[in-house]
Structures are given as C-alpha cells and as structure tokens.
C-alpha cells in the first residue's frame, strides 16, 4: 500500500464527489452532493439526524449504490467499485456504531484489517498495541464484550495500524464519555498529522469544527452550506435550532 508521503499530487484533490445522488433507505437519500477533499485535507460533514450524513459515507465507501454523480478517489473513478476494491485502494471507512466484528477476538479484528497489508503484520499489530495498550491486554477477548469506548478504540486501531490515504470517521464520538471523545479526536488527529485525509461526520459539531479545515452542512439530503470550518458555527445553529436568525 502506498503511504501518503509518496503521493506527490500536492494540493490537488484526493477525493472528489460530484453531484452524488443516492436513493436508498428512508430519509437518507442524497441529492446532488459535491465535496472535495485535498490530500491531507480534513472535511467535517455536519447535519441533524436523518440528513444523509451516513449515507454519504456509505456511498463513498461503496456500501450503497449511487444513482447519479461521480466519485473520484486518488485520480480513479471509483463510483462503481465494490467496497473491497475501494478499501484496497486506500480508503478506510470507520462506520457508525461500533465498527468491529463482535464475534471475533480483538486480535482477530486487527488481523482482519491487515488482510490487505503486504508489509510486516507483526509491526502493524505492535503499533496498534502501543497506541492502545488496553487492546493488548484484551487481545484474546471477544470484541463484542468490550465496552463501547474500547470497541471504538479497536475500530480506530484497525485504521491506525495501516497507512490509508483517507479515512471516513462516522459518528465516532457518539455515546462516548467526554474523556473517550478526547481519545477519539486525538487518534484521528494523529492520522491527520501522518498525512491521512479525513472525512469526519458528526452530529455534535463544535469538536469537529475545531478539528477540520472545511465543513459542509447537510439538510434533508442536500448540501445547504459549504465553506471553512471556522465559519460554520453560525450556520450550524441556524440549521439545528431553527430559522430565528433569519427572521
């Protein structure tokens, strides 16, 4: 797998989604969504429950089919690719909820993440256990019996071990205690610092806005605002708490 350092395209876009339309699942469809994430860029996708944030993530990673538009990743049109192929191209999707195999042990979960890896698997595992010592202690435990925070760490470790080009973090902080939210953001920040591009989905916005360079707001399946993350707060409260500002 190419590490991000070897990508020499500079500021050109790593992931570009153009006019994406998805028709799938109740209240989760997308209309004409366009986003652009440069190499080592970070984008926060914000919006209320049901706005289509997770659908966007799933469409990009190939889990749900799109019915219009185009997705280009690392110079290749991946619109029709299978999730497997997209993953192998260096895009990791950490799904909403707990992105772990509950019936496999911690170690096996990590090994599953390494099946595409060509280099030394031992080294990767070492890295994971150094980052999250608690996983090392519980390597033989079934992932389904871990606490919510530990499962989320496992999900993060699965991405951190390898060197993807882009990660999608879907509601990683949902339902976690504040201290664990810190761990989540710290971990994703570590990936960003290593040159990985990040597409972050959050319902609770201020942390995400502090993290990302760019942001979009999705409402009822459409992008209603896009711009620099530090300018998003105003728009966001408008979107969440109603149009009083516009009155």
């Amino acid at each position, binding site marked *: 797998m190419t590490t991000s350092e070897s990508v020499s395209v500079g500021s050109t876009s790593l992931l570009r989604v153009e006019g994406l339309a998805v028709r799938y699942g109740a209240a989760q469809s997308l209309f004409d969504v366009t986003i652009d994430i440069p190499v080592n860029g970070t984008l926060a996708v914000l919006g209320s429950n049901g706005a289509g944030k997770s659908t966007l993530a799933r469409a990009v990673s190939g889990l749900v089919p799109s019915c219009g538009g185009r997705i280009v990743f690392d110079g290749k049109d991946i619109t029709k690719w299978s999730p497997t192929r997209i993953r192998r191209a260096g895009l990791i999707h950490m799904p909403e909820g707990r992105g772990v195999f509950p019936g496999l042990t911690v170690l096996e979960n990590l090994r599953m993440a390494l099946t595409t890896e060509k280099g030394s698997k031992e080294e990767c595992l070492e890295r994971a256990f150094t980052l999250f010592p608690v996983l090392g202690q519980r390597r033989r435990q079934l992932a389904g019996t871990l606490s919510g925070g530990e499962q989320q760490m496992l999900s993060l470790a699965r991405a951190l071990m390898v060197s993807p080009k882009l990660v999608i973090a879907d509601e990683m902080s949902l339902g976690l205690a504040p201290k664990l939210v810190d761990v989540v953001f710290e971990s994703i920040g570590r990936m960003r610092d290593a040159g990985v591009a990040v597409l972050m989905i959050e319902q609770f916005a201020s942390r995400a806005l502090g993290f990302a360079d760019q942001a979009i707001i999705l409402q009822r399946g459409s992008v209603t605002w896009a711009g620099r993350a530090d300018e998003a707060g105003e728009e*966001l409260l408008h979107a969440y708490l109603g149009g009083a500002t516009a009155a």
Partner: protein
Amino acid sequence: MSTALHAPEAAAPDTGAPRLEARGVTVRFGGLVANKDVDLAVGSQQIVGLVGPNGAGKSTLFAVLSGLLRPTAGKVFMDGEDVTGTSPQKRAARGLARTFQHPELFSSLTVREHLVLAYRMKNAKSRIWTDLLSFRGFAKSPKAEDARVDELVESLQLGGIQHLPAAGLPLGSARLLEIARALAREPRVLLLDEPSSGLDVRETEEVAEVLKSVVRDHGVSLLMVEHDVELVLGMSDAVHVLDFGVKIAGGTPAEVRRDPAVRAAYLGEEIEKPAVQRAEAEIEQGELA
C-alpha cells in the same frame, strides 16, 4: 383546510387529568438505559414537542406510550387511568393513534384502503368477522365511510395517489398517508414520530396547518418527536428535551431555546467559538423580535 377533519363524537369530555401522561418511565435493554425516569404530560388540546439528538431515547418513549414496549419501571396514564399494562389495541380503542419514524405502511393496500381500514377499526370493528359471511367484500362501501375517507384524502392531498399501493410511495407521501391513517382513526391523542422528515418546506407547512386544525377544532392532543426544531418550537405549547435517555429540559419553547443544557446537547459541549456565540446572540434577538 377541511373543517370536517375529525368526526364530532371524538371530542371527549374533559376529566381534568392529562390526556396522556408518563410518570418515571425507565426502559433498560440489557445494560443500556434508553429512558431514565422520564416524566411527561400532554393535556387536552395541547401540542407538546419532544426533541433531542439522535439516540436520545425518543422513539423508545413513543413505543412505551403506544403500548408496543413495556417500560422497566414507571407508569403510563390516559385520562388519569393507568394503562401501563394494556395492549396497543386497547389504547387505540381509548383514542390513541400514532405515526412512525420509519413509516409502517401496509405495502399491498392502496392509500385509500389504509384509510378505509383505519375508519372501520374505529366505527365498524365487527366487520372483520361479519364481512366473511355477508359477502360485503363485493358490496359498495357505506356513504358515511366514503365521505369521511374523501375528506381525509383531500385535506392531506392524497387524491392523485389514492388508488396506488403503499409500496411504491415516496417517503413524503408515506408520511402524509401515515398521518391521514392516524386521523382516520379519529384519535383523541395523536403521537407523531418525525412527521416532517421527507417533506419539503411547503408540505411541512401544510401538514403543520392540518395538525393545528385538528387540535383547534376537534380537541385532539398532539405529542410529536421532530428533528426540525424550528417546527416544534413554533407549534408547541410545551417542549421536552431528551438526551441520553434523560429529560434534560422542559418548558415553553422560549425557555427551552435559552436553556444552555439544550445547546450543549445539540452541539456536543459548551460552545466557545466567537462565531457561535454571535449566532446564539442572534437567535435570542430573533426570538425576542
């Protein structure tokens, strides 16, 4: 909007007790607490909003109120009477109707048949058995039934699709149909789970009008979960906010809008950015204006 949305006999005597009340409702799924000690009351002719972030336990509370789920602890009352242990059917007979976040439609039935069935469940329940022997499946439907169903079809603008099966409907139509079906049951308390999601701005306004008119003209009480906070704050007499299964705020829309706990719940934590603070200030001003 139609003024005959609701049959007159459904307007019931006011006993003084809230139409629907939850006291100390707690629901646990294994180790997970979905609702913790939630109190909530819907008075006669009141519109009450229930808001909260994703996963806050709103739908669970609805399931408890409508009888689809037994609470681990706590009680549910209708008109002051304990209905915690009664079935959804019994609660429907007492005048409770609801819609669902993911529309629970009957795929093979046409839009109109949904309303016919709901109407008959209220007005001619025995037909489930008598139709079999009287061969009324081949007979014309009664005039009163037709008239009532026509009204609902018209007021929720289902005319163009009334003979289509529910399975092919877009989400917006499905929402309207769910609301129409609930109204066909001539309820006294109506629970609405995200009535506006899938609707555009204009449809949302129209649905809001229909709902206000049932409340105003027919004494129906409404409890609604809605993520369009603007809609809820604009319509409701009272609003309750759930977060992590706990009621963190409750009161008039104005009070709730100002509540810092609500902001924190929605944005993840206390807001520090100047831009956001500015936005807060503007919201408050807008509200005063």
